């Protein structure tokens, strides 16, 4: 079935979701960004430069690896890992920062800002800023600064200024608030590289387009390796950039099921989680309408997850739309289950995944055994686990 999918509309709406909900001072730079993005999207020179960077700097294409031992162990579908962990800087985040930084350069912006949760987007942004010689300021919640200190050090090595955000819950959402405050103050020379498929239009569409290299490659690689399309895609969802990157090129291939895995933290029933699609409601935050974790008064609720990168009360508006239309299915995995996924693939395949990606691993452990041996699952292994070694060691009572 090939029903055409062409979201968002020209005002950035995915059905009732998305849009542009920002203070007036940000309207002109957002319009400027949208115009530049639409222009360069079809500029062969821009695309050629982006492709060259992705190949020689990021190291693309990333392999599609058949996890044979793990597949056998689970006794169901054949599991393939899209190895975004092998990208330069260790996650899928660099696909997007390379693209947005090239755009910033063409727009004549000299200063880059970013928000970060786990620090992967911050590192990817600091990396590309170093390469292009741009000033870089990264906002990071104080709680995340503490639990992802290795990435903080990496960003500083790369020459970025890391600002620990002390307001609110001191996590990713507060980093985003602070980055927006910076942007509103420095609109003239500053480009805000948002790391996920959230924020005001055109960010959700633009970040998706830069990340959809993941799904395009995976589709081609799967066809090459197996002669057919996969039966299911699995990816973790915080803001949702790695998931949409994998899903998007498959949206019109209706035989391919899509599973987005949210962080259930201590369990959705406990209220201590980060699963707005599974247990939230529509609302407006950070420039777009989407599913949010908020109370009856519309105040945002503090989230919880073992993985800083999933610890966010919103989610990209396109995921909200894919949920409502039933095209994708959103499930959730607790901290404890995610750790089982982490250990399983580490010991079974010799690959240490990020705690974020471990949520996708854990869901696959439930899904694969329900499928036939000749069926195929592709998981987005969105990042490597090096950044989480301190967290893991601490849980095991080991001091590094």
């Amino acid at each position: 079935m090939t029903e055409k999918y062409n979201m968002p509309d020209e005002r950035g709406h995915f059905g009732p979701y998305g849009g542009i909900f920002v203070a007036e001072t940000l309207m002109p730079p957002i319009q400027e960004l949208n115009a530049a993005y639409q222009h360069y999207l079809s500029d062969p020179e821009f695309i050629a430069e982006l492709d060259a960077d992705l190949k020689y700097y990021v190291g693309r294409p990333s392999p599609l690896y058949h996890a044979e031992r793990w597949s056998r162990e689970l006794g169901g579908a054949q599991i393939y890992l899209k190895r975004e962990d092998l990208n330069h800087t260790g996650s899928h985040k660099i696909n997007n920062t390379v693209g947005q930084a090239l755009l910033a350069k063409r727009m004549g912006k000299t200063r880059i800002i970013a928000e970060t949760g786990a620090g992967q987007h911050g590192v990817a942004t600091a990396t590309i800023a170093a390469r292009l010689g741009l000033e870089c300021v990264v906002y990071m919640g104080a709680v995340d600064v503490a639990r992802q200190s290795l990435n903080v050090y990496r960003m500083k090595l790369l020459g970025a200024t890391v600002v620990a955000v002390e307001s609110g819950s001191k996590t990713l959402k507060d980093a985003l608030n602070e980055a927006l405050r910076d942007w509103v103050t420095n609109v003239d020379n500053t480009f805000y590289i948002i790391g996920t498929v959230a924020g005001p239009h055109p960010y959700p569409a633009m970040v998706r387009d830069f990340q959809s290299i993941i799904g395009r490659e995976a589709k081609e690689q799967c066809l090459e390796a197996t002669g057919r399309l996969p039966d299911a895609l699995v990816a973790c969802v915080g803001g949702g950039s790695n998931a949409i990157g994998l899903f998007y090129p498959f949206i019109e291939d209706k035989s391919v099921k899509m599973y987005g895995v949210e962080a259930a933290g201590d369990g959705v029933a406990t209220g201590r989680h980060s699963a707005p699609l599974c247990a939230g409601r529509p609302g407006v935050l950070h420039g777009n309408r989407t599913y949010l974790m908020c109370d009856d008064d519309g105040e945002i609720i503090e989230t919880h997850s073992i993985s800083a990168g999933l610890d966010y009360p919103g989610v990209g508006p396109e995921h909200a739309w894919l949920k409502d239309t039933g095209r994708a299915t959103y499930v959730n995995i607790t901290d404890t289950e995610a750790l089982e996924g982490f250990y399983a693939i580490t010991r079974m395949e010799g690959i240490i995944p990020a705690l974020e990606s471990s949520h996708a691993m854990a869901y696959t452990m439930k899904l694969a055994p329900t499928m036939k041996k000749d069926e195929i699952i592709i998981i987005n292994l969105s990042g490597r686990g090096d950044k989480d070694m301190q967290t893991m060691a601490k849980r095991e009572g080991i001091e590094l």
Partner: protein
Amino acid sequence: MSRLAARFEALANTGRKALIPFITAGDPRPDFTVPLMHAMVKAGADVIELGVPFSDPMADGPVIQRASERALAHKMSLKRTLEIAAEFRKTDQETPVVLMGYLNPIEAMGYENFANAAQRADIDGVLTVDLPPEEGLECSALLKARGVDPIFLLAPNSTDERVKKMDVAGSGYIYYVSLKGVTGAGHLNAVDVENKLQQIRGNTKLPIAIGFGVKDAATAKTIANIGDGVVIGSALISKVEENLDNLEQASNEIIELLVSIRQALDS
């Protein structure tokens, strides 16, 4: 004629400028707000902007962020802010009250429920920071139909096209954000504001209140002379923050500052 329109017309007729204090509802305690509103009117306030506390105030500087946090710690909400406004209205039918806040609490209440509640509380205007006219027409229409003015922001980088858009979408007054930045920032430039106001005046007849970065009587006077009114927020809320252990003192200092601004505006 709406209470806001009438108030600005009366001021214009007597050659006076509007003094518009902003306070966060329920900061630092819910029972502090209504008496303070009445005291501010006595001190010369023409319109009161009542901030609706929100967990993620993206356009606000640290002073108003902390005010929101203090109020939320006392379970303040949009609903309770409306109750405060209604309470104030019982004994003051003259002074316009404008709610200023973010969209999500309104989304959670539902646009129509909110418009009805605003009408019941006899609110005069609603300014929603993160709701530009492109997304806000549905909500604005519901408010206008109930006699509540939807108020929009303009900024130093707003184009003629956007000024015209606000002129059509908004009523009551336009809130001109005097600088690129968050509330309470310190780099307001009067010459820039004056140049920009000329451009805006060419495209709208709505009264223009100027805010962000107004700290004292001197700046207030300079700024008010350019526009039709001046909004002062963070400087007032700082007085609360500095006197959390003595709220009578906080109230006195707020009133003292407003009186000095009123005198400066009228001199």
